[in-house]
């Protein structure tokens, strides 16, 4: 099953399990979504439970808030990462705060699905890393799967959760295949996965770059004899700091890998946390292999702009050779 199919299966199974689950967004109905994620849902569940909206992202999220107030469990889709911005106010002002504002009386079991990140040669505004905006905003959970089976499981969990989840789907992994056992849950939201054990350097990452990190680990092992420990965060809020800490205690070195701009990217928070809590365990500073502080580049430049195996290995090497210069 591809990740696209796994997500589609999760939506199907969630809709089957609970008729309060409704799926909507731009082109998710008739067309089954521009990536075909929602293919078949309209014919299976009817157009009341899977429908096309007008071209209005704020409306998509705002209406979801209203539906949640009335007991539904909306799973809206925003067509691409960059189009969450018109809905920013509804997400930050309401989706994130409604529970607080109503003193816990109204939950927001809304899962906002967003095909996200770069790497597939898309046009402008289609490759944004938005996670900092959500993770900094109190009241949102932020989930980023990296494999089809996790995508299935984390999406089912997200839909069942009574909190709002921004569910960032790494488009560049949409066509990755894996055997997915339908109905089976992997680890819950809030639990990171150690994708490869190692004791040389801890690499913390998520989403589409988990594969990059694993590739780099293979090279590092073969060419340098370094054993990288690769941690896939799976959710950024809640953050499974314990798993990160256990690894850093072991390796003494940590590199964070993400593709969004470096300034105030997740690497900033992880570096801050790791040095705050594991200061004396560190043999070198926490380093960041990331995208740059520029707008996301045009398609032809993305492969050199994005952090790949080279940038990660350079950074790992800097960590390993760091000394009292």
């Amino acid at each position, binding site marked *: 099953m591809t990740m696209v199919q796994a997500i589609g299966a999760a939506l199907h199974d969630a809709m089957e399990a609970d008729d309060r689950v*409704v799926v909507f967004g731009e082109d998710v109905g008739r067309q089954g979504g521009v990536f075909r994620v929602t293919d078949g849902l309209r014919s299976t569940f009817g157009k*009341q439970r899977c429908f096309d*909206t*007008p071209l*209005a992202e*704020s*409306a998509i*999220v*705002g*209406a*979801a*808030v*209203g*539906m*949640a*107030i*009335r*007991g*539904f469990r*909306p799973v809206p889709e925003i067509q691409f990462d960059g189009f969450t911005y018109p809905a920013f*106010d*509804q997400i930050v*002002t*309401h989706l994130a*705060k409604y*529970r*607080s*504002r*109503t*003193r*816990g*009386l*109204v*939950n927001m079991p809304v899962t906002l699905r967003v095909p996200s990140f770069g790497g597939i040669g898309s046009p402008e505004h289609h490759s944004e890393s938005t996670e900092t905006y959500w993770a900094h905003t*109190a*009241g949102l*959970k932020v989930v980023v799967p990296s494999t089809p089976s996790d995508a299935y499981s984390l999406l089912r969990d997200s839909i069942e*959760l*009574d*909190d709002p989840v921004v569910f960032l789907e790494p488009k560049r992994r949409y066509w990755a295949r894996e055997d997915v056992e339908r109905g089976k849950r992997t680890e819950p939201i*809030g639990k990171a996965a150690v994708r490869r054990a190692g004791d040389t350097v801890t690499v913390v990452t998520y989403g589409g770059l988990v594969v990059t990190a694993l590739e780099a680990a293979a090279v590092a092992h073969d060419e340098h004899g370094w054993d990288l420990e690769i941690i896939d965060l799976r959710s950024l*809020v*809640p*953050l499974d*700091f*314990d798993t990160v800490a256990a690894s850093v205690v072991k390796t003494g070195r940590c590199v964070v890998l993400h593709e969004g701009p470096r300034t105030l990217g997740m690497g900033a928070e992880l570096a801050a946390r790791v040095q705050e809590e594991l200061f004396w365990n560190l043999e070198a500073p926490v380093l960041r292999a990331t995208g740059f502080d520029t707008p996301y580049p045009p398609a032809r430049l993305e492969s050199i702009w994005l952090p790949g195996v080279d940038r990660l290995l350079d950074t790992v090497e800097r960590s390993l050779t760091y000394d009292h210069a």
Partner: protein
Amino acid sequence: MADLLIQGINLEPRQLLAPDGTTTPTAGLDLTALHDRLPAMYETMVATRELDEEFVNLQRQGQLALFPSCRGQEAAQVGCASALRDTDWLFPQYRELGAFLVRGIDPGGIGLAWRGTWHGGVGFIERCVGPISIAIGTHALHAVGAAMASTWLADGGVTVAFIGDGATSEGDVHEALNLAAVNQAPCIFYVQNNGWAISTPLTDQYRAPSLAHKAIGYGMPGVRVDGNDVAACYLVVAEAAERARRGAGPTLIEAVTYRLGPHTTSDDPTRYRSDEEVDAWEALDPIDRCRAYLLGSGLWDDSLEERARATAAALRTSLRDAVFDAPDGSVAELFDHVFVEPTPVLVAQRAELLAELGREV
């Protein structure tokens, strides 16, 4: 009057009660059907006016951080809310004290919002009313989502979004009107056009012949109503609600009224509007008008005024009791309501803050 019919929408607001309390000979609407309801609406309007004054007093006494008075808009709010069922959802902006009282929301719970004890107030949701919503226009979309949910639940419910004239300029209100129309959602967009958005007059806010005219661009009915005529507001909303309940979709209503007081207790309206303008609207007071009609139509009896004053007094007392020197609430609650289960970060931060406070004691 024909020249007031612009593109099929009547610029002359629908009216049943003329400012002097006589009946306006309009549209053959039957006012007697409302006779058993008018006394209660009168009572609520009086209570609203008085409770509003108490809010202002409490703010002056430093008990509230801020208060946006609804003085002058009592008919628009009470008329509208009275035409609905208690299970119909209302999504207010922040100035809808009259509607809150119709719903029986505890004044203290409203006061806690303005005191700064809890954002959004307390006791709203339990009455099918959204929390006080300060981010202008945003709640209109919640109303549409809730209305769509009503259709799915087939609960016969109608949802009302209260919107200011200023709010109509926000993108969210446009998206809400359009989404409701496309889905024929049982939703009423109830615009209280009170002449001002803080200091911004209508001429800087829109150029349409009226706000009701915006309905045309969404393919829904639009109607102007005299917002100082409680009977007309009631009937226009009742009609829209009936239409919505039978699946005929949303309506945009513009209640033409006036904010007699400042925008909030922090505002000084003399910077931007004339006394003459305010005086002209004072003469159109919605409560006086209703009383005059009740008197003229034989519905009045002095016990009504007494009852109204007694209700008002009780509400004032209940507000004072709830907010005067009210305790600040617990900071721990802040952490507890962010998520259903706090994240590890929140657990740690909560403990950190409690430790800090403990140390301070």
